[in-house]
């Protein structure tokens, strides 16, 4: 199978869904659903080929800009494939979450699918120029989507996310160009070879430049200030994609470029990165505690969990890195479910304000129970996927930086605290006036994504072995780079 299909089919779908809505032949949303379904099927096909032992790293290569040794090179290993599958799945969720979106649907789904092409490109590119190009292009549809379909302060939020992450990305680009000048090519493999013999000062400089780009995207405190506005103001489906996938771009970049290309350099800075991540974990958790808007609470909780993920990467331990990659998938699923529910809350109840949602579980039991489930998953209840990921990360961290690990453990009750407190005030407790009038109906395009996500979160929690094993191939390679097992 050609991995390029995973990029071009969403792109084609984007054009078709725009034209479909204009001409009125079919609705844009059905084209979008068909496209995302097809992409999901193709992702699964790619996975099966990978499991069948096909070498897809790299899969294909074409010259793009010859004077700079730039090629259109795609490839996938276990890590890329996990994220490709996550992208395909969350796009199905996002399309269903946008089923009744207002405004010009042709434009909306066109932009949404263009973004999918960009995301797939980021996770598949093995030419760093190509990687950067996809990385940047994801932002443009996001800017339009937030601006066109967002909440009250949308134009401020859209501009902020655009400017902030663009700034970070350009610093990353300088880092990439520096590596290119060393290697004479943008190919991941050529650069990997060339960097092996480069001097330490040069590598430190490159690492810091790259890190700025990733830190803005993940985001780590203090590079996170764009996030609460963007996540809150974006329409629900876009928030799902921002939190579930765009943040993973940063983590993926950190692993693919930071760890794989500059292992020793990263290791020198690992402690500092871990401390930064730890600050993120705590800062975001405390901020989440203070939120009244449930969407903002989930946004900060997301920052906190991404900090956890970075801790796993910085542990440079086999189990820790496996846990981090596992967390990418797990956090993607959980955060998508949580944001999906916040969207439903607005639809059914008419508010996201925690104090106004009291007694939800009596009036809208489906919504209430799923919210309980998602919160428990997010706080790391054993038996659900978040637990597996965070436990592995902690185990990895204990073997490398025990002191930091002890502090990290302290964040767990905090996370449990803000989620349970939120549940207590919103879902349980006295029925509020607003909830009295809540609608309790659940339609198919609401139930389906919820059920799929719940199922997957449980499955990965109960039986994580297959995914862990697959991820293990990538993390083993990474650990081997620094002379580990």
């Amino acid at each position: 199978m050609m991995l390029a299909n995973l990029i071009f089919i969403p792109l084609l779908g984007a054009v078709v869904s725009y034209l479909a809505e204009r001409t009125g032949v079919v609705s844009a949303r059905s084209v979008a659903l068909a496209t995302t379904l097809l992409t999901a099927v193709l992702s699964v096909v790619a996975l099966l080929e990978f499991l069948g032992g096909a070498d897809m790293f790299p899969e294909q290569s074409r010259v793009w800009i010859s004077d700079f040794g730039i090629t259109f090179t795609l490839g996938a290993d276990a890590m890329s494939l996990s994220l490709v599958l996550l992208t395909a799945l969350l796009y199905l969720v996002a399309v269903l979450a946008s089923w009744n979106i207002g405004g010009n649907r042709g434009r909306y789904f066109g932009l949404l699918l263009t973004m999918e092409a960009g995301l797939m490109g980021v996770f598949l590119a093995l030419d760093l120029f190509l990687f950067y190009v996809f990385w940047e292009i994801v932002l443009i549809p996001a800017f339009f989507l937030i601006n066109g379909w967002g909440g009250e302060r949308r134009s401020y939020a859209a501009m902020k996310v655009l400017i902030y992450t663009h700034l970070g990305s350009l610093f990353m680009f300088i880092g990439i160009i520096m590596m290119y000048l060393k290697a004479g090519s943008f190919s991941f493999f050529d650069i990997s070879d060339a960097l092996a013999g480069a001097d330490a000062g040069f590598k430190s400089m490159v690492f810091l430049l790259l890190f700025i780009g990733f830190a803005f995207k993940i985001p780590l405190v203090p590079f996170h200030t764009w996030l609460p506005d963007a996540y809150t103001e974006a329409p629900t489906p876009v928030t799902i994609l921002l939190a579930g996938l765009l943040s993973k771009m940063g983590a993926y970049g950190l692993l693919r470029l930071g760890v794989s290309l500059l292992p020793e350099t990263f290791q020198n800075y690992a402690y500092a990165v871990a401390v930064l991540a730890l600050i993120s974990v705590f800062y975001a958790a405390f901020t989440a505690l203070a939120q009244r808007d449930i969407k903002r609470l989930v946004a900060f909780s997301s920052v906190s969990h991404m900090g956890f993920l970075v801790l796993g990467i910085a542990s440079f331990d086999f189990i820790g890195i496996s846990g981090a990659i596992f967390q990418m998938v797990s956090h993607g699923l959980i955060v998508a479910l949580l944001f999906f529910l916040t969207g439903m809350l607005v639809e059914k109840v008419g508010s996201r304000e925690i104090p106004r949602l009291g007694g939800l579980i009596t009036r809208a039991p489906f919504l209430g129970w799923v919210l309980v489930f998602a919160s428990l998953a997010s706080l790391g209840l054993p038996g659900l996927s978040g637990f597996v990921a965070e436990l592995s990360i902690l185990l990895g961290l204990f073997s490398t930086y025990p002191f930091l690990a002890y502090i990290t453990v302290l964040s767990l009750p905090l996370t449990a605290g803000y989620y349970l407190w939120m549940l207590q005030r919103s879902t349980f407790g006295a029925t509020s006036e607003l909830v009295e009038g809540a609608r309790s109906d659940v339609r198919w395009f609401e139930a389906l994504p919820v059920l799929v996500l719940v199922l997957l979160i449980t499955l990965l929690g109960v039986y994580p072995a297959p995914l862990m094993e697959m991820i293990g191939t990538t993390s083993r390679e990474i650990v081997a780079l620094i002379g580990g097992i």
Partner: protein
Amino acid sequence: MLESLLPELIVAVFALAVIFIDMTLREDDREFLGYLSLAGVLLALAAVLMQTKEALQSPVLEAGVFSGLMRIDLFAVFFKVVFLLVALMVVLGSIDATRKDRYKGEYYSLVLFSTLGMMFAAMAVDLVLMFVAVELATISTFALAAYRKSRRTTEAAMKYFVVGAFSSGLIVFGMSLLYGLSGSTNLYEIAGAMGSGDLYWVQVLAMVFLIAGFGYKVAAVPFHMWAPDTYQGAPSPVSAFLAAATKKMAFVALLRIFVVALSAPALVEKWALLFGILAAVTMTLGNVVALSQRNIKRMLAYSSIGQAGYVLIIFALLASGADVSLSVGAGLLHIFTHAIMKGGAFLVVAAASYYMIGSELEDFSNLGRRLPLTALSMTVFLLSLAGIPFFAGFVSKFMILTATVAAGGWYLFLGILLVVNSVVSLYYYARVIRYMYFAGGEVRREPEPALLTVALLLAALLVVYIGVFPDSFVSLSIDAAGSLFS
């Protein structure tokens, strides 16, 4: 020898034809002159493209036309393509944009004569011819800037004229010093005679006069004050012409004089530093001031200043010992892409004013629904100007950034400044997009002026094409830079 000047002959003949046929036409029929000019530009473009094809085989077609006055190399041909493409856009757009104006004959012949001057400037390797060609191009635009009579236009044109005349004076003075120092007006002979270190201060003086003189023409800070007023006051198609073509011509002259004639290492060291400072100040001031502009033409003018700063960076790099073809090639491609996208952006303003839509930011509210194709092309131009991937501007900015990083050391500072400026510029470009699409309120779709829209769409298509398939354009510009020396 004359056949190698075929493109210029075509433009000259059509320019004269426009004037003479104008006398025989009734006022209602004068729209024909637009089509006549269009045909001339298209023919000349075809002839130049043939030359390009030849020049790709052997970069220097003729080294000394008219006993060494001109040199037809890939560099010259490259710029002729740029000028003719801009002329094509402007003429195509002007047929709609000047429909209600009276003096069409004068208008089109001035555009053609100005283009002719630029084409000669692209080939000139002799100071005298270069000066004459630059003057032909600029003096024609003085009149163009004053083409419509209003207080604002007159002020714009007057300012442009005074500054233009003054800067020409500076240039002549610099050139005469060069002649005095080297005993020749031929750039390649000057290159051989300079650099001995004799008359050190005279050399510096010559460089300062030339940098200042051409600095006015490219609107580099601190010689930029005229540009915002002129671009804002002039009719939009003329602003497009000024920003996209006239300004680029000054870069041609700068490149020929500094990179060729003053290429002695001892000299390069001095002027490269000057250019470095100029570049840093120009891009920063241009972009920062653009942030606060509410008028789109004025904003585009300041953005133009900022973008000129990006090109000036490459002059600074020439002292670093980095690959000259790469650095100059990066500048050439950026001149090319900037000409198309900035020319296009000004034409969008022209299209808007066709429906009496002003050029304030608020006036562009909902342009996306009023004039969807116009707004779409504007979006392409703006994203490209901001350097977003898959648009032309990204490719050329990437080349400049790479050249800067390759130079290493302190030049990296210029690279970081470029990046930060790029982010700043994204803000004010994205703001226009926001107004065009997300302002809210009800509007009616209007029929868009056909030819102007065609011009815009062609330009937007070219911008996307270069962004998606940049390979041949990148190597073309690098080869064109190389042909300066071969």
